[in-house]
């Protein structure tokens, strides 16, 4: 989709070693993680940015000065400034850009969260099965994912969007369609290395079933890596949504989304730069926050990085 992503294999390389060296410990360690994340410069910045956006999204109805879809054709394309009552100006339909950005954070975060949730559930599930059992299932899935990667994504998206029609959930499905592959690949690789380790052998010796071993033993040990991948991929999903809007395949316009705001405002770049640029900055900031948080998490969860 014109956007690039850090391939999972590379990105979580450091994390794979985490899983190998650090056995799974319960909540106490998690609390330590947050503390150490706050001590980590980039991670702290990322956490603050993301938390701020989440707060804005939750409080949108309280802090937004206008309704996000309030059309007012008499006050269109007002430039940003203090005099007009529209701090960040208005768009081509006279809607308040600040309010739209505030409400847009809801959509963007929601799109990011749900696509990641769906992708990770599917990807981790299949990845663990393939990695644990191998064999025919693994081979079939390998071919299938290869096909998915080699197939131009756009055709998928147009097909999905036009067969089932435009809408928020349809967009989420379209984005998740390929999004799970990265989770699948990483989960598979991690499971393959985990399944031969002592604690798994011990569980097997105790007579635990495969299901229990996968869910109770292996899953907790690979979940850190998945968390990191998730945060890093989330920004990417939000970006892709904006590209789909460029092609006219985004979500319904009454819900303000940054992607479609940028795509629509692009047409006014010559006379009214703010319409596309301000939501662009918001998008860049959130993606930046997500990535900083993700990288911070990775550094914190990887003991080697702590030493360095």
């Amino acid at each position: 989709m014109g956007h690039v992503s850090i391939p999972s294999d590379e990105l979580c390389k450091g994390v794979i070693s985490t899983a190998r060296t650090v056995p799974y410990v319960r909540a106490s360690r998690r609390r330590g993680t947050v503390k150490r994340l706050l001590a980590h410069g980039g991670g702290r910045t990322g956490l603050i940015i993301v938390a701020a956006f989440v707060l804005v999204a939750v409080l949108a109805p309280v802090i937004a000065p206008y309704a996000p879809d309030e059309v007012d054709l008499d006050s269109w394309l007002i430039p940003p400034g203090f005099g007009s009552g529209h701090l960040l100006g208005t768009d081509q339909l006279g809607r308040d850009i600040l309010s739209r950005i505030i409400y847009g954070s809801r959509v963007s975060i929601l799109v990011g969260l749900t696509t990641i949730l769906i992708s990770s559930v599917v990807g981790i599930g299949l990845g663990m099965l393939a990695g644990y059992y191998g064999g025919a299932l693994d081979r079939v899935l390998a071919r299938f994912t290869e096909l998915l990667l080699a197939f131009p994504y756009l055709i998928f998206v147009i097909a999905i969007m036009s067969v089932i029609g435009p809408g928020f959930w349809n967009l989420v499905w379209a984005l998740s369609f390929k999004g799970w592959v990265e989770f699948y690949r990483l989960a598979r690789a991690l499971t393959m290395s985990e399944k031969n380790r002592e604690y798994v052998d011990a569980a097997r010796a105790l007579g635990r079933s495969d299901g229990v071993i996968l869910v109770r033993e292996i899953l907790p040990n690979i979940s850190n890596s998945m968390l990191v991948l998730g945060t890093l991929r989330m920004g990417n999903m939000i970006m892709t949504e904006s590209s789909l809007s460029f092609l006219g395949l985004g979500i319904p316009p009454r819900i303000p989304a940054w992607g479609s705001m940028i795509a629509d405002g692009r047409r006014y770049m010559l006379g009214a730069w703010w319409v596309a640029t301000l939501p662009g900055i918001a998008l860049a900031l959130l993606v930046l926050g997500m990535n900083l948080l993700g990288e911070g998490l990775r550094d914190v969860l990887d003991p080697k990085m702590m030493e360095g």
Partner: protein
Amino acid sequence: MKSRTILTTLIIAMILAFGFLSTTTGQTRKQLSVVIDTDSTRADEAQAIAHNLRAIGVSADVRIWEWNALKERIQAGERQMYLTAWGSAYFDPFDIIVPKFYSGDRGNYSGYSNARFDAALDRALRAVDNDARREAYFDAQQILYDDAPAIFGYSLMEVEAARSDVLNWQPSMDSRVNLHDVGLARGDTIVVGLYADKILTLDPAAYRDRPTETVIRNMFDALVTRTWDGKVVPEIAEAWKAVSDTEYLFRIRRGIKFHNGDLLDADDVVFTFDRVLREGAMGGRTSPRKGLLGPVEKVEKVDQYTVRFVLSSPFPVLPQALVHFQIVPRKYVERVGDEAFARKPVGCGPFKYVEGQFDDKIVMERFDDYYGGSPSIPPVGPARVKRAIFRMMPDPTVRVAAVKTGEVHIIQSVPSHMAAALVRDKNIQVKSVEGTRVYMVEMNCRRPPFDDPRVRRAMNYAVDWDAILRTVYAGNATRLATAFLPSGFGFNQSIVPYKYDPARAKALLAEAGYSTK
């Protein structure tokens, strides 16, 4: 325990809230709820319309689709209200009102059907006498206005821009870029930034889109052509006359040369039309342009410089139609074959093809032996510039940037809100002409709620077009009373567009049994 109490309270509160809401709005009348469908290009307009509808108490929402996927659903009758447009090429309601509103015709997306209306159109199509045709179209206009199968909209001004050193430049209503007539104060190569992503072909019989035609018409000429404002004038044909309602004679100018030196005569004309009309005539393939010739049955040679058009039924717009059929050289096409012809086209127009790539640019050079073109559109003679280049520039901002930097001389299709920025530039001239596309919001007349003309009329009163056209289209639009174009034949000026009148809209809705705000 505590959380359960909170939960219970919440549920009770919600039930109460719902009850409260339903008692305030839930009178015996039902609320009208519509989904407005559009492709992304008109999303702003659709939202403004939805805003207008919400203001009178209609629950309105907008969906954005990929156009061709949406079209299929509209044709299946699955959608309610949709933003559509239809272009006219013949300056006659024949190719816009008939396909759009005649019962069951190809472009009739609203499912509108009225026997009286169809009868009026039939009269207009069969009559040859202009007064009778005009009268029939007037009748049709009034019926259409009253039935309101669509929220009637507007036509957009076609804004084009050129560098100020381009001389004698005038945009055309049929979006022709006439490079024969223009000159350059400096230099000898003129570059046009075409709004299209690509052109389809260089074979005049193998396409149906405007951009391709724009390029082809600089290399090929037709029997007749148009002035910029839509009047048909002779080009290759010297003169023509209707022998009867269904028979026309065209006399061809002598001494016209094709780019390869062959002389043009009746055989080439007959060959050109045979290629379009006969199945499989293009090397086994059939031309997609056949339908554009309407009831033309065959074209025959009378003598070396006269041809006869034989029609199966009267077709008063024939001269308008023939503007779009460029004459090809018979001997050359027969010798090299159709595929090679499309790769290396030879015509008799003011420019000859040099090279090009359909997604990139098409380069052509002046044809020095040109016969001069239509005597009704001076100057007559070879083209004034030596070379002409069409460049594909699909992005409007880029087109505007390119004409500002001087990279291209002429650009088409300037978005309304960018025109202002260009007008201020001293190096640029901006001109606009009346457009030939009608934009409207069609309603599905086959299903409730829009099977009720009162509701459809209410919708027409509810939309504040003046405000929408002033802002979304920066005032570069003409409000229309129906889908008839002012530039087309038989336009009735005395019908005034539906006024913006929310009170009237509400009254009509209430009459039809819907709640209002």
